[in-house]
């Protein structure tokens, strides 16, 4: 039966994610054995002393450095992926992603302002978050016409707002001193280098409720993807539904982007990968894309910090792996799936 097969596939994916979790904690420049990692995690979860065979440095590296980083990779993967599913369904366009309403350019603008004018804007993260939300809010208000918001108008206003905020980023780059320029560039490439437990906790707080809302709204998303009139004739209020879905997914994406910078492609790739396995029903695509996104970002981040001695920005890895995948998807699978 189809339901059981899909449930089975979902459980297998989840097992893969759990399977990727421990290798990510073990891998890294500083040697820690699998047994030691298990000992540290087990002790910390129960709030006990770590085992005697673990040094203080190992404890700090696994629990203070690697653990929050792994968690943030997972939550960011979930946030960007479910936001991708949500945006693609809402705008009936399989090629949009969370950044379409200006989340990324807004966040980049906020971060660059904070980097160049540290006295005016306190902290990269909060400023990036505020500007990301501001960009989306402006896009949304611009698209509003006599109380109605058409998806096309929304996408267009997103592009306009994105251009505006990108211009501000360019000005900041022009004004920036060399070290600041380097910082801006690095921030925009995206990465999880400085992740702390506070970041990880914040992202969990934002992502779990959003994921729950979007999973629950998966069915509404199916109806919305047919178009506003059909959705309405089937009994949902398209404007209200879209508002809830966009606000929720933007919130999670903005929180994650403000913490770790711009990580491209994930929100575009994983929804498609999920649809290839589960079909287009968003009740399945939402959880499947979430798991795939988490696993993908976890794998990419592990590669980013172990491939060479110095760390490669995560956004570069996701793009290098993501772009060919999307090309393959469009050329080979596109015709087969999307007719």
């Amino acid at each position: 039966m189809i339901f059981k097969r899909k449930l089975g596939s979902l459980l297998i994916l989840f097992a893969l994610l759990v399977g990727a979790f421990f290798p990510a904690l073990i891998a890294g420049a500083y040697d820690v054995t699998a047994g030691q990692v298990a000992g540290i995690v087990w002790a910390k979860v129960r709030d006990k002393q770590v085992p005697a065979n673990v040094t203080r440095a190992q404890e700090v590296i696994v629990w203070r450095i690697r653990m929050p980083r792994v968690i943030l990779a997972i939550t960011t993967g979930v946030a960007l992926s479910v936001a991708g599913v949500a945006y693609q369904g809402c705008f009936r366009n399989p090629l949009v992603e969370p950044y379409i309403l200006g989340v990324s350019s807004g966040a980049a603008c906020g971060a660059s302002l904070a980097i160049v004018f540290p006295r005016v804007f306190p902290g990269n993260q909060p400023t990036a978050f505020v500007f990301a939300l501001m960009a989306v809010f402006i896009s949304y208000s611009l698209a509003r016409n006599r109380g109605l918001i058409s998806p096309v108008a929304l996408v267009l206003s997103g592009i306009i707002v994105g251009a505006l905020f990108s211009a501000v980023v360019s000005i900041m780059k022009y004004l920036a001193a060399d070290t600041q320029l380097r910082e801006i560039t690095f921030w925009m490439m995206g990465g999880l280098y400085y992740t702390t437990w506070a970041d990880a906790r914040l992202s969990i707080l934002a992502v779990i409720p959003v994921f729950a809302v979007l999973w629950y709204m998966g069915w509404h998303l199916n109806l919305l993807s047919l178009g506003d009139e059909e959705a309405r004739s089937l009994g949902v209020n398209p404007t209200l539904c879209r508002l809830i879905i966009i606000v929720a997914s933007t919130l999670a994406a903005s929180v994650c982007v403000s913490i770790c910078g711009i990580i491209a492609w994930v929100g575009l790739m994983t929804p498609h990968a999920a649809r290839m396995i589960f079909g287009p029903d968003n009740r399945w695509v939402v959880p499947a894309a979430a798991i795939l996104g988490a696993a993908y970002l976890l794998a990419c981040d592990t590669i980013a910090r172990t491939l060479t001695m110095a760390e490669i920005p995560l956004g570069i890895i996701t793009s290098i792996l993501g772009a060919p995948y999307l090309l393959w998807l469009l050329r080979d699978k596109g015709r087969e799936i999307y007719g």
Partner: protein
Amino acid sequence: MVRQMANGPFGESQSAPALAEMAKGGAEALLSVEDVRFSYGAKEVLKGVSLSVTAGTLRGLLGPNGSGKTTLFKCCLGFLKPKSGAIKIGQKPIGELGPKRLAAKVAYVPQEHHPSFPYSVREMVEMGRAPHRGALPMLTKRDHEAVEMALGRVGLADRANENYGHLSGGQRRLVLVARALAQEAEIMFLDEPTSSLDFSNQLIVWETVRSIASQGLGVVICCHDPNHILWFCDEVAALKNGRILADGPVGSTIDRELLQTLYGREIHAETIGPRTFIYP
């Protein structure tokens, strides 16, 4: 010139229930449109339209392009809000119902469309259950039964797992009809369900719709071919420039004069055997 044509071309039996219903002295209106006016900006599209939909009746809506048919549909389905006048289901204005309760009463079969995502036939039909769903995301046994029955009614039960986008145009329309059936509404609106279909598929869609109406639904169908309306519908309303020109049983309403007024050109009608044909 044009004879009484209340029965369909495929025998008396199909429309017998409908006739019986009408014989009961015009069953109560499921949906009534009362003096509705609507305008896009300064342009008035509906200029006081009144109409009623009764159970077991297949009602055709005839009119040239730009006559306001689609706008009337959109008002009845709650997509547009009329400037004045009332649209009621039973005694209740549709504005008071809210999308979900309205959808449980009125189903809609849109014109041909290509979905953005590759839903299967069954998934498309399952979406018709939306107005009846509770809080849980899973479909109940009752939902599955309604879906299977709807698929069976349009003869697509064996193609349920295929990609909806890969079906032929005619089959896609039938899937949309099945979705409306799964919705279990009392009223069904179809917007040009046969446009761009081949001859045989047009007839299949019409026969399906005919049998749906005969089983007790109130069906309104918007169509450009007066022949089809003559052959399949019980009643017809003719719309031009936002006004109803004529409204009544097809046989006594559609005649040469009406069609010439509607389309502004010479039109002939001839009765051959049991059927009437309209031709240029």
